[in-house]
């Protein structure tokens, strides 16, 4: 705890010296093409590798996570993940209908980028185009996780 107290005192002093570093800032205008993903499964690895926990294979799980209030992200083509904070004026980023309905869709989105402590955040101002579910990885991975689809009764 001593180390924490020293860090706290240092951070407090630093905040006085350069407070604006930590304050909310204006975003940078960007346009991103990417897929709306379930960020917890992507970051944690609990359901498999990053190639498997996206796309059609993971679509139902992505909906469960979104409905459960787990943060939704945009996985860009370059592999960067952008945590979605707001979309087209809707701030319901914890289980809201808009993000639930977009699970696994690949879109082009215009918005504002913010970066804070290692994570990218985006306020999506407009979904310019929507390709639907474009990553058809169920062909390779089936369904992820495997228990999503109940086995059909004979």
């Amino acid at each position: 705890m001593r180390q924490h107290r020293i860090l706290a005192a240092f951070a407090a002093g630093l905040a006085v010296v350069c407070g604006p570093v930590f304050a909310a800032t204006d975003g940078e205008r960007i346009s991103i093409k990417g897929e709306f993903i379930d960020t917890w499964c992507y970051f944690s690895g609990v359901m498999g590798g990053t190639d498997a926990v996206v796309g059609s294979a993971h679509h139902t799980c992505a909906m469960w996570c979104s409905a459960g209030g787990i943060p939704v992200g945009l996985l860009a083509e370059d592999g960067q993940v952008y945590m979605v904070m707001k979309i087209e004026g809707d701030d319901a980023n914890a289980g809201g209908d808009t993000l639930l309905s977009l699970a696994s869709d690949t879109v082009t989105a215009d918005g504002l980028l913010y970066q804070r402590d290692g994570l990218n955040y985006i306020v999506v101002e407009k979904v310019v185009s929507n390709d639907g579910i474009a990553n058809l990885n169920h062909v390779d991975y089936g369904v992820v996780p495997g228990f999503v689809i109940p086995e059909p009764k004979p």
Partner: protein
Amino acid sequence: MIRALLFSILALPAAAQEADFSAGSTAKSWNMPAEVPALFEAKVVDLLCEVAGDCPADCGAGRRQLALLRTADNTLVYPMKNAQPVFAGNVVELLPYCGKAVEVDGLLLDDPDIGARNVYLLQRIRETGAQDWVNADRWTKDWAAANPEAAGKGPWFRRDPRVNALIAQDGYFGLGLETDEAAIKELFE
């Protein structure tokens, strides 16, 4: 002096991410590759307000993601997951504490190769100064109260009306019912 201060400012992000908060943690492992137990003091904040300055009076009343502004180093930690292994997030767990100082215990994830920095699984929380911890497992009770028409056996995610409506419309893979039927047939044959 100025050079030392500049060096300290530049070094802060790396130092914050490398700081060890495991002392005193009783967090249970989820066997995740990048997990580290972490017990720390923080202020619960509205994420959109903290990052972008978009600040309603009520912290979003449950609509918005909440986050933890760690006291020791002013790092913004994103608590994505509660303690329940059932696809549940953290807003229900954190909303009663929004704007307050708390202690939290859980698992930090740090996997920069895939962009995961300062990501957190919350297992228990208490207001600073409180004696008793509160387990971060209230989500399913909150869901049941909000969805009485979906009462029944099985986990919530099998009974959720919104998700089930989307599955009925577009299938488990989201590609339409015909594609779904063919894929399922292949999977189980």
